[in-house]
């Protein structure tokens, strides 16, 4: 029973990281109607940025995270301006191939500057004690303590590492803030309007280009946060680190209904939980196949994802 809870918590943690990445995919898709294949590689850049700054002596951890976020945000905006903006109005497949080109570019720059050897990422919560759940009598006690636990004799029934805990909490906070931003602020509402109808939004005086840039900036910033959380939990980084989580997050975005922000959150979390549970109970080699199988079943039953809207084609 407790091992199930432990797998579930790990799944929630992985899922909230996927959700953060999926938000970037889904926001960009909603507004620019393009699949940004380079999004996964922005995660990788964020990871390296945090790694390099943390390796210097003067830089505290919080500053490293801020630098990673800034680097990714600037990178996302630059990519949008240089590669995607000239192609606005071009056939979607051309934009897709350009995004693939950007993805190759980022990977190869990382290969040249950082080499292909995996590097060890120091966790941002290194040294922090894990959370333990201990039963004393009947009352469960939840506290953070490691070796010098006052309940030394009692075995903890559940251990949750600080990284896992952080991933869940940070993601929840970010998702709440993002939802508030989109529904309450002017810029957020402009994003919704643009994703609904770009032409009409422009007629209402919304700066469509500025809004698209803002979307890329937010998506990339979220990717940087996801990068730091992910590399802390799975402490290794290579130039290809971002590509598989990127694809998984893309799947999560489609799973929830691409273009829908709550959909990306639900899709990401569900995907993470399914992946961890199938790793634990079915087969670790086949967990990817199971994730994709579930996706396919969901899409066949609900062709536009869990929260996607059905679009009726008009003649």
């Amino acid at each position, binding site marked *: 029973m407790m091992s199930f809870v432990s797998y579930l918590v790990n799944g929630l943690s992985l899922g909230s990281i996927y959700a953060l990445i999926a938000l970037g995919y889904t926001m960009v898709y909603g507004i620019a109607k393009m699949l940004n294949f380079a999004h996964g590689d922005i995660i990788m850049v964020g990871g390296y940025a945090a790694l390099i700054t943390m390796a210097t002596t003067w830089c505290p951890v919080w500053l490293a995270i801020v630098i990673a976020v800034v680097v990714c945000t600037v990178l996302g905006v630059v990519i949008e301006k240089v590669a995607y903006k000239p*192609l606005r109005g071009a056939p*979607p497949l051309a934009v897709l191939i350009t995004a693939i080109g950007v993805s190759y570019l980022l990977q190869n720059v990382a290969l040249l500057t950082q080499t292909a050897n995996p590097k060890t990422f120091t966790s941002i919560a290194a040294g922090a004690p894990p959370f333990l759940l201990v039963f004393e009598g009947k009352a469960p006690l939840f506290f953070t303590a490691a070796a010098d636990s006052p309940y030394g004799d009692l075995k903890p029934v559940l251990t949750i590492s600080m990284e896992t805990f952080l991933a869940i909490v940070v993601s929840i906070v970010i998702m709440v803030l993002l939802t508030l931003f989109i529904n309450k602020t002017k810029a957020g509402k402009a994003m919704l309007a643009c994703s609904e109808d770009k032409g009409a939004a422009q007629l209402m005086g919304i700066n469509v280009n500025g809004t698209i840039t803002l979307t890329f900036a937010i998506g990339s910033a979220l990717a940087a946060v996801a990068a730091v959380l992910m590399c802390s939990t799975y402490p290794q980084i290579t130039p290809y680190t971002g590509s598989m989580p990127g694809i998984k997050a893309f799947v999560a975005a*489609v799973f929830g209904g691409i273009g829908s922000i709550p959909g990306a959150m639900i899709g990401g979390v569900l995907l993470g939980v399914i992946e961890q549970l199938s790793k634990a109970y079915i087969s670790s080699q086949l967990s*990817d196949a199971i994730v994709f199988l579930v996706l396919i079943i969901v*899409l066949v039953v609900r062709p536009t994802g869990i929260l996607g809207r059905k679009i009726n084609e008009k003649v």
Partner: protein
Amino acid sequence: MKRFKVMTMRKQTKNNLITFVGAAVLFFAMAALSQAGVLNNKITGLLVPIGIYVILAISLNLTVGVLGELSLGHAGFMCVGAYVSGAVSLVIQNSPNLAVPDWLRFALAIVLGGIMAAVFGVLIGIPVLRLRGDYLAIVTLGFGEIMKSLANNIYLVMDNNGLHFGFTQAPELGENSEGAKELLRGPIGMSAPQDTNIWVVSVVLLICLAALMMFIDSKSGRACMAVRDNYIAAQSVGINVTKFRLMAFTISAAIAGVAGALYSHSISLLAAKKFDYNLSILILVFVVLGGLGSMRGSIIATIILYALPEIFREVGNYRMLIYAIVLIGMMIFNNAPFFIQLRERIGASAPVRKLKGIFKKKKAGGVE
């Protein structure tokens, strides 16, 4: 009389004939040259993979260019063909009772690889083709990854008692199992006999090319293009949309399976992880740069894009960087509204369009 016929030939037929003869001359000339020892080793070594990638590109062009659906899982069908044909070859080769000549074994392996890939095409096509657009793309990506994962976990061992099949772990062998041969070894992969050479690849390529062009030029092919250009209009004039989409999807899968069969017989150790989405995307890049719907464009783009990075291996690590930059630059230059207007304004559009005409028959717009 014959000359008269050529004169009145339909434009499409003439175009197809030029493509076919061009490909035939090119590939057979290269094969002859490499056999004569004129070409250096590096180029000779490139010929077989280029031929295989050309087959993949023209088959994907049927799905993306003619049918108008973005498929990101083409490597999955190649994987099916590679594994089925490899297993068939290895089983026949290791069975002492079966006296099958090598050429027949290879032909059988290729045909079976193609058929199995087609079966998978139908099985996958039925659920997939209920979807459209980006959702279809992501589901094909999912299927590609699933097939890769499954192939990565298959074990096949042959001993005196017959075949033993294992999934996710090697099968347990019973008594009397001396001389057991591991045919498929899970993540390590398999070593099919090295039968593929440039002549075989050229012949298979030309057969596939002819079949594809005939399909596209047939009533069914035109139905597919009608579905691509306007789904609802095609439905309303009585085209059985599902049937033609499934047909094109299956043919595309079968040819990818054939390419996979050639591939598994061309390299010494083949692991399933080769068939990931990066391979699918690589082929998609060939197809899109060559021009959607244009077989000739796919062939030319594949040859150039595959050969260039290999030939410039000396540049070392920078070659993929240059490739990426060239890819982005070409896409922007070809498709950005700004550049299209610029070309029109300076009057350069006529020669450019003429030049582009070689590569592009259909205006990109195949995929909505």
